[in-house]
């Protein structure tokens, strides 16, 4: 049910699809440029494995309620683990492969999908995580809470991207208010699931390899010292 985030062809008109395609290309070019600071061409294979991880994670279902399950989108997760630039590139490549090889998400909707999930989603998640960084560095509880909030906000704001595109060139007959209520309501629920799984995942990674958590990089947080002495 979380795949509702993957827009199909025909949801927005052609000019809107082209406009967001251009936004996605420009945004990704910027991310690629900045990603080189985090990894050069020679270390790109690592990003390939992270991308394969994102792809695999989207296949893992977790329960929400009996009969309803969802899967992780992973925007905030990769932003916290590998940083926003590499993270956005990873998510965009997953979306590209899904559109070209798995017929998941429309080809003309690729621009809107990349804008929502790879650009808006990842950077919102990372922005929230940065705001809460002092909390995150205080210890495991802080990091887990940060990851939850970042993933929740990321999911809801990414769905607002859809509402924006629908307002710009929606091809359906529903009023904007209905779409807004439907998307935001649905994604607030999905966001709770995304938040819980993201928080637990980040917590699990930080417990074993805190050096891999991008958000904790740069300083010597209490978490690292505690784990190192253990």
């Amino acid at each position, binding site marked *: *049910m979380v795949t*509702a985030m993957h*827009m*199909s*062809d*025909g949801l927005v008109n*052609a000019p809107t*699809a082209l406009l967001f395609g251009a936004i996605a290309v420009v945004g990704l070019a910027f991310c*690629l440029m900045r*990603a*080189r600071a985090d990894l050069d061409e*020679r*270390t*790109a294979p*690592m*990003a*390939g*494995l*992270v*991308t*394969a*991880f994102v*792809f*695999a*994670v989207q*296949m*893992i279902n*977790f*329960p929400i*309620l*009996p009969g309803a399950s969802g899967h992780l989108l992973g925007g905030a997760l990769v932003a916290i683990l590998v940083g926003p630039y590499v993270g956005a*590139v*990873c998510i965009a*490549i*997953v979306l*590209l*492969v899904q559109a*070209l*090889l*798995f*017929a*998941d998400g*429309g*080809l*003309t*909707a690729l621009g809107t999908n990349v804008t929502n999930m790879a650009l808006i989603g990842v950077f919102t998640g990372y922005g929230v995580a940065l705001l809460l960084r002092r909390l995150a560095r205080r210890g495991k509880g802080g990091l887990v809470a940060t990851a939850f909030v970042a993933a929740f906000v990321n999911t809801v704001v990414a769905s607002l991207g859809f509402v924006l595109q629908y307002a710009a060139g929606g091809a*359906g*007959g*529903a009023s904007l208010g*209905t779409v807004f209520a439907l998307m935001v309501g649905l994604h607030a629920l999905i966001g*709770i*699931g995304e938040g819980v*799984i993201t928080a*637990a*995942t*980040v*917590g*699990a*990674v930080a417990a*074993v390899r805190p050096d891999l958590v991008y958000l904790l990089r740069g300083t010597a947080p209490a978490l690292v010292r505690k784990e190192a002495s253990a």
Partner: protein
Amino acid sequence: MGAGHAHPLHLPRESVVHRLPPQIKIVAAFLGVLCVVATPREAFPVFAGYLAVLVGVWVAARIPPGWILRRSLIEAPFVVLAVLLPFTGPGPQVEWLGLTLSEPGLLGAWNILVKGTLGVLTSLTLAATTPMRDLLVGLQRLHAPAMVTTITTLMLRYMEVIAGEARRMRLARLSRGHDPRFLWQAGATARGVGALFLRSYERGERVHLAMLSRGWTGAMPVLTADTTTRADWVRGLAPVGIAALLAVTGWVIA
């Protein structure tokens, strides 16, 4: 990594469409769907024309239509939104089997359904006729940035490995009696996702070191010499030409 380079939607056949250089197929699929999306929704017969073009491509590619149609059901999620539209849309209303439906809502639903379906059918046609390796060649020839093709290559090579690892971890949880029903019981799944990230990242470190020791310089080698001719482009873009004519027809009659 000699095996396992097929993906589930690929249908190996010996045909003109399969042999077409991949970059042409990618461009043709994008342009074709763009024509569909740009068509006014009231131009009903034009959409039948698009379907006829696709059927023509399937015949040329020797893909049974049933094979494609069965797989087109993945489209389902957005159909939900489409079904809601006739009930929530604004007036004028039409009566149908005792239901009061909104006319713009019905048109909107039709628009999403028909364009979404034609889009999925096009994507499926591309996936069915293009193996993974060809897709990479296509991206390379379309001048995608080197970092994108490198990451995509590694992603496609290890996608099955990581997904297989995730499946085995799930099987291990299930065989230990794991049966979560509520979100707050998802802890074990989440710890599994954390472990999967660590395994993927550390595998990435090992793969990277192995590549360095075999002389990796940071650039993907050119996989195959490009022997694309102008005739290939003409042949590959012919269906798009028909689609463009159909789109223009749509604008005239609507």
